[in-house]
């Protein structure tokens, strides 16, 4: 999915040439030997099942289906009845993504440069640990936070900010966005942190010495240097965001439904494996397009030259 920019390939060739010049060139097959284990795992556990799904998506696969070839699954998957859910899915995923970056980016910056050595590791550990909690338990916990009689409403009522509980806090798109953002925060902060850590602090000092304020430093130094990490984060997080089914199922209510819940329903609830597989590929294609677009918009190559 992620195509490495041509410059990487060139660099690779250059590296190999120097390497070969100094020592005996390793066997042509050596990389394949090293790669065999991971490639096998990927083929068996990733490409294999995906291939099965691809086959199913073109077959009659339901309680009464006989496995004959058909295009009807795609016709069913593209029916207008899923359109509203599809639109919901994209809105929720994009809003969560934006929110996630808005929180994760400053947080990663603070951890990398501001909190100091004493807090850096504990904070990272806290983020990693927050992901250790079983996702279902975490979502149920959010119910007690966002509920009508939950923490937020009780607190606001006690403070006299509101008279009656806010009823849009739970079982809405809002609650799905909140839960998704919170769930995937560690996955956004950690790659961004890693990207920031590669910045030499002396570069920041130099910027300051040359009279750059925080905004200029950010725009001209920090952001260009972390742009690759920024894009990597989008790729890592957007796919799970757009395909989550636990959060919409538990806090989405009737208005925060997402496509993955429909797919789950088709597979596990209705035994409609054919339509479920087809819809899976529709979702996969949609998320592929979004990721590809974000690459285009950010124009990976031009950002990369600023290194």
């Amino acid at each position, binding site marked *: 999915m992620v195509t490495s920019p041509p410059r990487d390939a060139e660099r690779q060739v250059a590296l190999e040439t120097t390497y070969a010049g100094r020592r005996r060139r390793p066997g042509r097959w050596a990389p394949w030997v090293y790669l065999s284990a991971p490639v096998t795992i990927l083929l068996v556990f990733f490409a294999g099942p995906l291939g*099965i799904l691809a086959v199913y998506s073109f077959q009659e696969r339901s309680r009464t289906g006989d496995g004959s070839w058909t295009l009807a699954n795609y016709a069913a998957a593209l029916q207008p009845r899923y359109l509203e859910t599809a639109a919901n899915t994209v809105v929720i995923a994009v809003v969560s993504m934006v929110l996630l970056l808005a929180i994760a980016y400053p947080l990663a910056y603070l951890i990398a440069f501001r909190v100091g050595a004493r807090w850096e590791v504990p904070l990272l550990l806290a983020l990693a640990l927050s992901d250790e909690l079983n996702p279902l338990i975490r979502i149920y916990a959010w119910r007690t936070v966002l509920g*009508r*009689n939950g923490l937020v409403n009780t607190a606001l009522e006690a403070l006299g900010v509101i008279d009656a509980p806010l009823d849009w806090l739970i*079982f809405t798109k809002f609650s799905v966005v909140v839960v998704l953002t919170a769930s995937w925060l560690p996955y956004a902060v950690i790659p961004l942190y890693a990207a920031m850590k590669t910045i030499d602090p002396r570069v920041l000092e130099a910027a300051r010495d040359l009279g750059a304020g925080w905004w200029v430093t950010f725009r001209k130094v920090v952001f260009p240097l972390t742009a690759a990490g920024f894009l990597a984060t989008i790729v890592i997080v957007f796919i799970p965001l757009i395909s989550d*089914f636990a959060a919409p199922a538990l806090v989405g209510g*009737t208005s925060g439904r997402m496509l993955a819940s429909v797919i789950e329903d088709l597979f596990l*609830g209705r035994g409609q494996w054919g339509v479920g597989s087809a819809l899976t590929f529709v979702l996969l294609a949609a998320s592929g397009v979004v990721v590809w677009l974000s690459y285009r918009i950010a124009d990976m190559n031009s950002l990369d030259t600023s290194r």
Partner: protein
Amino acid sequence: MVRGRRLLLVAAVVAIVAAACGGGGSELQAKADACKVDEVDGDLSLYNWSEYIDPELVEKFKATYGVEVTETFFESNESMLAQVEAGGAVYDLVVPSDYMVDIMRQEGLLVKLNREAIPNLANLDPKFTNLPFDPGNEYSAPYLWGTTGIGFSYDVVDDAADLTWGLIFDPELSAPFAGKISLLDDEREVFAAALKYLGYSVNSKDEKELQEATELLKAAKDRVATFTSDSFEDLLVAGEVVIAHGWNGDFFSAFDEADAWEELGYGIPKEGGVAWVDNMAIPTTAEHVCTAQTFINFILDPENGAQLAEWNYYASPNAKANELIDPEMLSDPAVYPPPEVFEKLEFLEDLGDFATKYADAFTEVKS
């Protein structure tokens, strides 16, 4: 897509295994027919609704017969069916509701019970031994029975006798609780509620009636907070909803746990509702058919049956068990509905190919 994909992977792997296996049904039947009373032939894999058995009963079974019991749970009859059909996983015993027994029986997914290995079948109330979904209890033995109605807060409804499905479907009547209503995440149950409100049968095979119910549900959806089959009682107790569509015993267990009998109630709307029987049955995915039949016999024991019903607050189909059940529970009209209420209840029936129309309509309602 990490979490979602894991599920799909499982489904795909299951499919491969299912394709590789298959057959062997008659062999399993022969094995079941040869079982003796109290015989065990290995550990028990029990596939049940969540929180549907007293853990002490499971412990007792383990201790008495020296086997392990693995419990897995499902949230709807349809998802259980999909899982059993997929094959791969071993389930020695499942607990489908009435109409689902019919579907599984007709699809050849169930093993016939060996009556000689389950002498306690004689303890059953004759009312439950010859129901249309499984005449003569050839394939299944009743577990518990109950009703589907409305759980409510006394803040919004004064008396269970005033209950009507209009509290959910009538735009004016339900307006005050907009956003504080939950419906079961179960296609047949949700449509049963809508069809009853419209005055039709819950087993309607009339496209026009189904269409009417679909429109009604779509219009009501904006007032519904969520579709849930596993936490409607918790949402009601927590005050997140004030009108909850659900199963009687689940409400009562939750009321009891929260000591909320004064604030919350349950009843059957005046238009009527659904009565159901859940049943123990042995799917063709079973390995330990003797243990499974011994377990059925164990549950049908009067003392165990009474303990099961009291723990769940569901009515027992076991006549001998009912003699041992707390008289207060026996006389509770919400647990054991009196004849005039029972008359208004309908069992869900297998609708054959028409069931797909319900599933499609429910998808339309939810999306």
